[in-house]
């Protein structure tokens, strides 16, 4: 029947490639433009929030947490309004996750606050007895990489036209000029925190990872 193909490896390979290639095109392309349109009023992440998102990626919170609320009554009761594609328009990568060892976090900013996160990231079982989430004490001393976060903002602005302001430029000077803004955001978070070392670090111009991740958590609404 097909023996001819099996004697002609070139055509065999072309055949395989054709058979596997077109499904992707047919399923991904038709809604591509529509799916990348932001919902009205969506703002790009601030640099501090982006730095927090980096911490989220670095410590792989996605291993246990989703950020995608499905349209079921039980989920909207637990986590809030179901998720819409336009809400993720500035998420590169998307962080929907595939496992809920812990709860969904897509709207965590609506129902947890800075001081709660501070307690929780330091020692989850002190806040939620029985929790199996690891404590992330190292985030209280490791410093967030805000320069890389700024580089990301500039990149998505220049390459993907994400609406960042004119002050976002691909130069060291622009970064130095923007840095105080990031520090101010960090100070606002640190003001609601209790850990003295963190407060001191921020006052001295350093931003511990935990401040960045809390900024990111509070942003998720």
């Amino acid at each position, binding site marked *: 029947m097909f023996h001819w193909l*099996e004697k002609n490896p070139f055509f065999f390979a072309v055949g395989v490639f054709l058979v596997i290639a077109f499904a992707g095109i047919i399923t991904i392309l038709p809604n591509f433009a529509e799916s990348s349109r932001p919902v009205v009023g969506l703002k790009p992440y601030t640099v501090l929030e982006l730095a927090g998102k980096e911490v989220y990626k670095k*410590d792989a919170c*996605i291993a246990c947490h989703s950020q995608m609320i499905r349209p079921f009554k039980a989920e909207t009761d637990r986590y809030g309004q179901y998720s819409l594609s336009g809400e993720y328009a500035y998420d590169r990568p998307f962080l929907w996750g595939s496992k809920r060892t812990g709860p969904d976090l897509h709207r965590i900013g609506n129902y947890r606050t800075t001081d709660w996160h501070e307690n929780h990231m330091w020692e989850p079982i002190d806040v939620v007895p029985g929790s199996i989430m690891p404590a992330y004490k190292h985030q209280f001393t490791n410093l967030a990489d805000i320069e890389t976060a700024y580089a990301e903002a500039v*990149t998505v602005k220049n390459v993907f036209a994400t609406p960042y302001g004119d002050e976002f430029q691909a130069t060291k000077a622009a970064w130095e000029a923007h840095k105080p803004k990031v520090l101010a955001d960090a100070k606002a978070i640190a003001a609601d925190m209790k850990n003295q070392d963190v407060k001191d670090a921020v006052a001295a111009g350093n931003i511990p990872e935990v401040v960045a991740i809390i900024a990111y958590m509070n942003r998720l609404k």
Partner: protein
Amino acid sequence: MQSNAALEYDYSVAKLFTYATILFGFLAMLIGTLIAAQLAFPELNYLIGEYGTFSRLRPVHTNTAIFGFTVGGVFATFYYVGQRVLKVSMAESKFLMFIGKLHFWIWFFGALFATITLLMGYSQSKEYAQYEWPADVAIVILWVLWGISIFGLIGIRREKVLYISMWYYIATFLGIAMLYIFNNMAVPTYFASGGLGSIMHSVSMYSGANDAMVQWWYGHNAVAFGFTVPIVGMIYYFLPKESGQAIYSYKLSLLSFWGLMFLYLWAGAHHLLYSPVPDWVQTMASVFSIVLILPSWGSAINMLLTMKGEWNQLTENPLIKFMVLASTFYMLSTLEGPIQAIKSVNAIAHFTDWIPGHVHDGVLGWVTFMIMASLFHMAPRMFKREIYSRKLIEVQFWLQTTAVVLYFTSMWIAGITQGMMWRAVDEYGNLMYSFIDTVTVLHPYYAIRTLSGVLYFVGFVIFAYNMIKTMSSSRELTEEPQFKSPMA
């Protein structure tokens, strides 16, 4: 047609991959057992500081298992099977020998490098594509090298008709190449921002829902072309070869192959059911997933029918036992997957432990069983020694079979319970359980899974020991065994 005996195959590359596959398998399962234990006993998160938390180690587990162990096993068997079914020796081409070795070393150091970067926290956070762009580049290079090996060997082959296993190796090569490149497309921020920040960091080419679509088009098919297609290729060679039986039906293998190729790529969105990707894409993925049962089962049935009348081999040869059981676990996961792809079932199953349960039916019962059986079959031929101990294989078989059963039964119950608890409402219509209730209830199942991990890991250590002994100190063979692998 030339006679078989005249050819002396060269296994130097296959041997290198064999050693490394065992090493990566050891690491992957050690870490797998550790992360399983961490979910049952969270204190274990702090063994090695920030590098020891569950979340840092989980991607290390999956990537070592996939890009180290599984892919290594695929390469090892390819450099063995490829020569034999094409009737051409690597020794015949200095060029291919060089490419093969380069392929090995780039893969080996690439996989080590990538593991270390993940531990350090460099991650794209896209499942099974976590490696940041420098490691991605290394992967693309080694993949091209593998392609040169495949088509180079085919180019100088003596056997004109490609054997079934070769179809699957070619498909693996093409499938992963296409998927990997598109899903990992990213812009390194260092270069796009005039030299600011970390050189390792990148942003995905796609955003939000589109990124999700591309990721699961990749993710599902990384499973397809990593855990299924090449492993089917392996069983099509090693089962008939070890048993001396002819393949039951050529037609069945043909229809299963092309059916699988055609259907697999449509099914990716079953990872995105009830997410904000378009409804029609989801429906299509569900429907295609159901149809996918048939080409999947086709190969498994073909293998079981190949053993028709050979009950005595099944009871006497532990390698046959591994492979027949692997076929049935393959049937289990390729029925379980499609049923989990039904929207109403997925409403419960998605996000729960039932999914890792499904995963490990496949990876432990099918992928790992096949890789170990294949390496066992290759060892006496590559090292010209009989397998060190049959008894150890038997012990290993029972340990690991028990382990798989414990793994999937515990996660099956855990996942279904958890999924239903999340949905449950009390008599007044309010949520019945707080999230933490649905966590603490899982403790016994997590503990059982840990036990299963220990058993499976011990089995793997026995395998590794048996292999090392076979390589180094087992009785030497004067002649290559035709079918059944000799063992002491």
